[in-house]
């Protein structure tokens, strides 16, 4: 932001003994130095303007975990968050961390978390005490544990950012998961952490990476903790029936629904799309399970294919020979199956001479780009929005029509947070005349999840009122946009359902960016 002399600070206020409902108070706070932190702003208010504001902190630098608040809808530690990085036009809105009961104003009640920790029994377990201390342990043996699980300071910022968490503790949330994982990776711990994780509802984790984005200790929780715990559970054959079905279907049929492989390429019939042939085609269009089988997502696959055909891109598809990309399998912790899938796909791609892959889904994009190289599968992987952006930039794709509409764009987790692709989809939308983009309060790195990640579009473990997709479509609706644009088949189907459940289908439609583009070329 451009640094203003005065910050407008809107603060959540609520005293349950006297107020019927929360309200916001606005304060003018001088912006006094370059690295001014949110804690400085709050202390200024507390000390100089309004003594009645309740906000807690103890150590003032990254230790006590007491100063967690939500700033412009993004949870953070007040003592290490630079105001200039979070202020929007010189304004910040400060609220308490979500989910936990508010004691007063910005102070939350942490007792539920402590009670749950007690219930779960999070502590070191040894059946046989060590013979000797220091117990022989290689430094490498403890390095993972040290780097990713030890440093947590209980700030609760991650759990308050987690779309799958709630105080009913059907899902223990990332904070308590880190505590569990700490002992899973402790080289000498003998507790049954897999069982604890399973009982703690670990498979509700959507793999969205919101926890990673906010953790002040940068513990990369989704990968180092959540997937690890899921893996441990899967290994002990502990998984909810829906997850088991999901994995089994993928193993047997190459897709989650157990549909026949033959039907995989059906969406492309009579479109004039060719089967991939490296001699003829520069690109492989990888469609993925959702795009191949789900009727709504098939529309998206068709839209992309039509646009590519129209521009004359040389590409082919695998059709019934295509297999699942395995991203969700990996996110669910089934590393063995993922390895199998990845290796099979890599083999197939290599055999066919594939060099460049355009993916429909950010999920496939993620695994092919980041994880296939671990199995020596090196391909140039491009998400279709990036590809469209390139086509537009170099003039190959000409937008010929206006598209008069207010559009808001939702960043999918696996394109945004996990791969930091925020601008390409927006640039594509911006290149369309008359189209107006409005941003939701939570965008880019702070985007919410559609609730479909880690196979949840199939397993549906996080549903009901708390369903992130329903919360998200409300947010989209509140921007006044008539179109909620997405760039992911999972988001597409999740949001379309949610729009119907929320009764918003008359007001707003969900469209994939490819579908919008198809209308303007």
């Amino acid at each position, binding site marked *: 932001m451009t640094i203003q002399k005065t910050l407008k600070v809107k603060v959540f206020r609520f005293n349950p003994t006297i107020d019927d409902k929360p309200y916001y108070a606005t304060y003018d706070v001088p912006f006094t130095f370059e690295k001014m*932190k949110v*804690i400085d702003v709050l202390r200024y208010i507390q000390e100089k303007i309004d003594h009645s504001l309740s906000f807690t902190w103890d150590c003032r630098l990254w230790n006590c975990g007491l100063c967690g608040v939500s700033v412009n809808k993004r949870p953070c530690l007040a003592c290490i968050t630079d105001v200039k990085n979070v202020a929007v036009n010189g304004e910040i809105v400060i609220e308490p961390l979500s989910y936990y009961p508010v004691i007063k104003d910005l102070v939350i009640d942490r007792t539920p978390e402590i009670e749950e920790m007690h219930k779960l029994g999070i502590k070191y377990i040894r059946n046989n005490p060590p013979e000797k201390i220091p117990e022989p342990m290689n430094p490498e043996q403890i390095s993972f544990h040290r780097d990713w699980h030890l440093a947590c300071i209980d700030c609760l910022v991650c759990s308050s950012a987690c779309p799958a968490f709630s105080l009913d503790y059907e899902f223990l949330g990332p904070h308590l998961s880190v505590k569990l994982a700490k002992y899973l990776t402790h080289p000498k711990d003998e507790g049954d952490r897999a069982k604890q994780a399973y009982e703690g509802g670990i498979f509700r984790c959507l793999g969205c990476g919101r926890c990673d984005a906010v953790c002040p200790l940068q513990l990369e929780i989704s990968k180092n903790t959540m997937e690890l715990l899921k893996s441990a559970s899967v290994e002990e054959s502990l998984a909810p029936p829906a997850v088991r079905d999901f994995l089994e279907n993928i193993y047997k049929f190459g897709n989650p629904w157990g549909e026949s492989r033959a039907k995989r390429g059906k969406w492309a019939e009579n479109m004039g799309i060719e089967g991939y042939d490296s001699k003829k085609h520069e690109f492989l269009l990888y469609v993925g399970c959702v795009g191949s089988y789900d009727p709504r997502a098939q529309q998206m696959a068709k839209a992309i294919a039509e646009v590519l055909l129209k521009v004359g891109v040389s590409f082919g598809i695998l059709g019934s020979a295509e297999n699942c990309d395995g991203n969700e399998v990996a996110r669910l912790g089934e590393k063995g199956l993922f390895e199998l899938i990845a290796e099979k796909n890599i083999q197939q791609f290599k055999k066919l001479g594939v060099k460049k892959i355009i993916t429909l889904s950010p999920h496939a994009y993620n695994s092919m780009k980041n994880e296939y190289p671990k199995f020596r599968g090196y391909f140039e992987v491009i998400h279709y929005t990036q590809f469209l952006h390139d086509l537009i930039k170099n003039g190959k794709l000409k937008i010929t029509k206006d598209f008069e509409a207010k559009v808001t764009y939702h960043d999918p987790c696996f394109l945004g947070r996990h791969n930091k692709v925020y601008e390409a989809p927006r640039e594509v939308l911006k290149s369309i005349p008359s189209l107006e983009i409005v941003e939701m309060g939570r965008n880019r790195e702070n985007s919410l999840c559609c609730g479909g990640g880690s196979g949840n579009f199939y397993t549906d473990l996080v549903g009901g009122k708390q369903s992130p997709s329903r919360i998200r479509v409300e947010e989209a609706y509140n921007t006044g946009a008539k179109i909620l644009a997405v760039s992911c088949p999972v988001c597409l189907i999740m949001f379309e359902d949610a729009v119907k459940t929320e009764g918003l289908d008359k007001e707003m439609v969900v469209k994939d960016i490819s579908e919008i583009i198809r209308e303007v070329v």
Partner: protein
Amino acid sequence: MWRDYVDQIIKTDVLVIGGGAAGLRAAIEARDQGAHVTLIAKGNVPGGSSVMSAFFAAAMSGESGTPQEHFEDTILGGAYLNNQKLVRILVEEAPKRIKELEEWGMLFARELPEYYIAVREGGHRRPRLIHAAGKGSGNRTSHVLFEQALDRSVDFHIFTFATSLLKSDNEVIGATAIDMKSGEFIVIQAKSTILASGGTSKIYTRGACARLNTGDGFSMALRAGALLTNMEFMQYIPLGIIHPGSADGYTLGGTPKAKEGYLLNKFGERFMVRYDPVWMEKSTRARMTVAIAKEIKEGRACERGGVLVDLTRITEEEKARHYKYQPYFPFCLKEIYGDKVGQFLEPYEVKPTALFQNGGVKINERCETNVPGLFAVGEVSSGVHGANRLGGNAMSECVVFGKIAGANAAERAKKVNFREIGDKKLKEERERVFAPLEREDGYDPRKVKERMQEIMWKYVGPLRNEVGLRKAINELTEIRMSIEPNLFSQNKSSRMNFEWMEALEIGSMVDLGLMMAEAAFFRKESREAHYREDFPEYFPHGDNENWCVETGILYEGGRLKIFKVPLEFTEIKPGEIRIEKVDVPYLTVRA
């Protein structure tokens, strides 16, 4: 009936006040001895300064040396004002408690499978400061202790502010507290009470410790008739952060963290050459603090009123070590001073800040105080460190004496019964506590607190003299007489009302400030953490002929009584320890 004045009554065998390492370790032990334990803490648990600290000092084996060496170093560092019986316990028990922590799942950093890594700090002749893998040891320890205590079903009350100890006849029988979450006035009836409320550097403008540590424990103990000693020995740490915001006064350690780490004044001079030519920037905390304070006072301070720490000559290897073992350090430098400093490319400015209270409630080897029923442990207690604490000894003290306090408190609880509480006293306490909420007008606690912090920093800070100390005593007395009774909280809600809490903290801070100023006034010498400009001669070792005694403080007849408390030199007499040149590496991987 006294119950009429109370919103909630808790009955427990052992009450622990404080949720830092000392309190948690005590709670665990008392539970293990079969007592019902209630732990109250003003903030979150784990909390206090414990979650901010980095090192344990212990002679493990191998290259960290013997307990005897640790013993001698601690006494020498404390300038013979230590209680040698306590130090003996500390050095013998610390390795055991550290092993016990490992049994509870704590992992200490290691490079070799069977040894810990240890570093050396000022005053330790060997590298014997071990640290946790991951974040700071204090942080890790506190979390491990918390898990153990939780597992033993210790009854935790967070955000619960103890206001006074309750007495019946001569005994402490529990405490009064406010549940800040609701504003309820609570009475905790206990057979034994363990005070583990930590230190108090927050009495100064520049203090490193946790904000909620305003020294309530010292004040509560004093008012309950406890004997306190050595309150003039506030330890400062030379390298305190200078920052326009909240991080001001925080510290990232006491010595420049590189072999070629320099301290420079505004002329770019390595001024330590004039104060300690042998040790230079590796000198003790007390000596470096006095040196920097003098540089500042004599007009050689840099732009922001401090001196420069120059780490630009850091080697690649040293850098790599920081990133690997203490990533916190460069991270915080970056957060505070910006990217260049975070990458060790530019010097940064510091000046001393208050860190640790060496003095406190006098305890014996059983952590008993002179008041039956009251135990003290951790930073609130006194005796282990004498005139100056060596790095790492505070954390070791917490776990070693925490266990002892817990065991003895539980033992006492088996023998005594609950005692009735006097109606009158409770009514008075309730009125005292709620008065700032009820007053319609008066002084703003925030402003008074700031004023006190300034008085303390100016007159009872790193450099002291008779005139200043007298000023401090007068000003504090004035606050006591005319301001404290008129503090008021504008905000009338009793829920999470920090203004109200601060009004109460001022009461503790005045007690504490007066104790520190009076004791500093009384002690006419310079010794380690206590530097008198009007008695510079004996610095840093002290005038052993006249002043190798503790300064005792009691509250009697409405005023402070200050007197000399002779020390027993059970093992070593003053001046007996001689250490020739210390020539060992900064770090060992075989501790």
